């Protein structure tokens, strides 16, 4: 989601919780036909319906995206060491999303201040998003999934989800296997193997032209593409998965005010991670007959320096805000010939220790909590037509500074009159795939509570349901 730094800077937000609302508007998306070209296998080998992975897809990812059935250009040394093992076809793909979005009630038109005007109803994204992928093997044991995205909200091209992997698989006695590997990535959980964690979780695509709730946990998107993480993992017998690693800031589009270079980060940057911050994951998957069941835990512990913005610098020192996320997830899949069914669920609990924000009155409490629950059920018939229903809920501490009320003269909508982050609702989605790499989606989001209330949540008379969103998207990749 390139260009969001503008949003960050202009709002000079003190915590990531609020920042999240701007970032979550358009989750990144994935469908990478270059993997199919490389393996020679149809989409269904790795996906139920993209981007949800099958067991084979998870193993392919854990092993570094390197399984290849293409002809190679090779080089070897006199000692038979492999010096080069290059596919004759580069693993490139393109992806496009063309969308239409309309909210139940329009939002005030800021250009029409002082008069009761609303912004135009209905937004066409043409494209909403266009991506170029390098996705596939780079060298033996080394593969990459790199996404470069044009985002219509920013009007620029920028780096999107990226996962570089090194992996090696050992044979164990009794024909067991142990895969060990490293992932260098830019979004916590983008390297994960299941769709019950945030980066590849439902909804797989959402409008970038709708209003979304203020609060989100740190692991649920706010730091996507603004951090770099190195994690190491073990995957035993394609069932037990353990991963640990660390993230630090790697912000895009931010410059050092003194040198004009890409760094080092200074006090005009906001939400800067202090040093290296831990990420962890443990999961177990059991496969039997046509069923797959996974249960796991994951989390991170980020220490964040609020920083400032260009023209309003705040030194990157002193107290930090700490976001400690502990989450559980579960995924069930039934993959039959005609019927495919899956359930994805996660529960994320965040403890915030807001030493920095509380000291600067950017939060009303020294510590807050935030809890997100999401459960989605998906059904497909012959991988051609299907749908998903998701329940989502976020609850947390009331904090009138963190989730601020509407300022005098401001239009509301993205504020909370009572300082509560609570939002909940449902997403219903229908999908039709004329071909396995082309998806047409009709999605509707219902809010029963938005930024703390069901009605008049912003103190300006707006109801949660006014933000209900109809979103139609044509999504294809080649």
């Amino acid at each position, binding site marked *: 989601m390139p260009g969001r730094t503008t949003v960050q800077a202009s709002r000079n937000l003190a915590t990531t919780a609020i920042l999240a609302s701007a970032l979550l508007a358009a989750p990144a998306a994935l469908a990478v036909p270059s993997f199919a070209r490389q*393996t*020679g*296998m*149809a*989409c*269904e*080998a790795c996906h139920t319906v993209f981007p949800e992975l099958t*067991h*084979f897809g998870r*193993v*392919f990812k854990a*092993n570094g995206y390197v*399984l290849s*059935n*293409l*002809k190679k250009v090779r080089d070897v040394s006199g000692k038979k060491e492999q010096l080069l093992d290059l596919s004759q076809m580069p693993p490139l793909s393109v992806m496009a999303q063309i969308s239409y979005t309309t909210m139940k009630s329009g939002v005030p038109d800021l250009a029409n201040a002082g008069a009761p005007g609303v912004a135009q109803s209905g937004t066409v994204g043409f494209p909403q998003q266009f991506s170029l992928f390098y996705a596939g093997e780079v060298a033996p044991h080394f593969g990459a999934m790199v996404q470069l995205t044009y985002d219509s909200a920013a009007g620029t091209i920028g780096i999107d989800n990226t996962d570089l992997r090194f992996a090696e*698989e050992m*044979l164990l006695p009794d*024909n*067991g*296997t142990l895969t060990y590997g490293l992932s260098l990535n830019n979004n916590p959980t983008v390297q994960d193997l299941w769709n019950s964690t945030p980066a590849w979780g439902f909804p797989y695509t959402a409008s970038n032209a709708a209003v979304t709730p203020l609060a989100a946990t740190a692991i649920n998107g706010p730091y996507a593409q603004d951090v770099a993480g190195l994690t190491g993992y073990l995957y035993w017998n*394609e069932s037990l998965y353990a991963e640990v690693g660390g993230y630090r800031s790697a912000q895009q589009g931010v410059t050092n005010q003194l040198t004009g270079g890409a760094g080092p980060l200074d006090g005009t940057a906001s939400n800067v991670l202090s040093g290296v911050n831990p990420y962890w994951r443990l999961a177990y998957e059991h*496969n*039997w*007959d*046509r069923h797959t069941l996974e249960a796991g835990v994951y989390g991170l512990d980020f220490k964040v320096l609020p920083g400032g913005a260009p023209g309003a610098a705040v030194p990157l020192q002193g107290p930090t805000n700490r976001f400690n996320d502990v989450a559980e997830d579960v995924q069930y899949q039934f*993959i039959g*010939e005609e019927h495919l069914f899956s359930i994805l669920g996660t529960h994320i609990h965040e403890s915030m220790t807001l030493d920095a924000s509380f000291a600067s009155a950017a939060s009303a409490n020294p510590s807050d909590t935030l809890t997100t629950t999401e459960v989605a059920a998906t059904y497909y018939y012959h991988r051609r037509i299907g749908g998903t229903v998701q329940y989502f809920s976020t609850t947390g501490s009331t904090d009138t500074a963190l989730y601020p009320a509407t300022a005098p003269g401001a239009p509301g909508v993205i504020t909370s009159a009572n300082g509560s982050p609570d939002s909940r609702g449902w997403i219903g989605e229908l999908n039709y795939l004329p*071909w*396995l*790499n082309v998806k047409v989606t009709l999605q509707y989001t219902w809010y029963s509570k938005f930024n703390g209330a069901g009605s008049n949540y912003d103190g300006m008379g707006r109801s949660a349901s006014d933000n209900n969103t109809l979103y139609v998207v044509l999504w294809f990749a080649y």
Partner: protein
Amino acid sequence: MRITKRSRHAPSRAVRWPRTSVLLAGAAVLLSVGSGSRAAEPDAAATAHAQRIAVTVCGICHGPTGNSTQPKFPRLAGQSATYLVSQLKAFRAQTRGDPDAIAYMWGMASQLDDATIEALAAYYAAQQPPPAGRGADALVARGREIYGQGVPAQGVPACSTCHGADARGQADFPRLAGQHAQYVLKQLASFQSSMRDIAVMHGVAQNLHLDDMQAVAAYLQAQP
């Protein structure tokens, strides 16, 4: 995106089911074409290489020893090496055209050389076949009848004639005992529609009713 089947030649259309002896002669000729004679025993390096591929790549779907747990993917443990060689070569040549062969195996087999194919076949042939599975008693009983005696009224010959009384196969005729019922059912349907274009099996399957297929499949899954 699913690749449409290549129409290499018109599928055979056996109008009337011939006598079993004619069938067997035809089967032997057809199934021997392409499989050729077995190559020499794979050497130690090829065997180790094949084991690694079998466990780390094929094993993701077929199970590390060829005893897959998912019925979409056939069990390969104890399968006839001759049959496995002929199938891997058919995948490589893109001449086996049932849907899962196209979606999965055309790609997976595309770069296999003959030596690796031989070694993979030897690896699976040497694995312990699966224990007998389960099936509904009535269905299994009906399946046993069809397997051993065919369905004379519909001109369907006994499966045991080629696949053996114990369904453990012989040379070109695959082992069927212990195979996933779902897999057997899909193959019979593919033979019937000629997507998997084997004239002999098309002849066998063309008059088989769905409930008969289900019975045979259940019976086979329940065999050790």
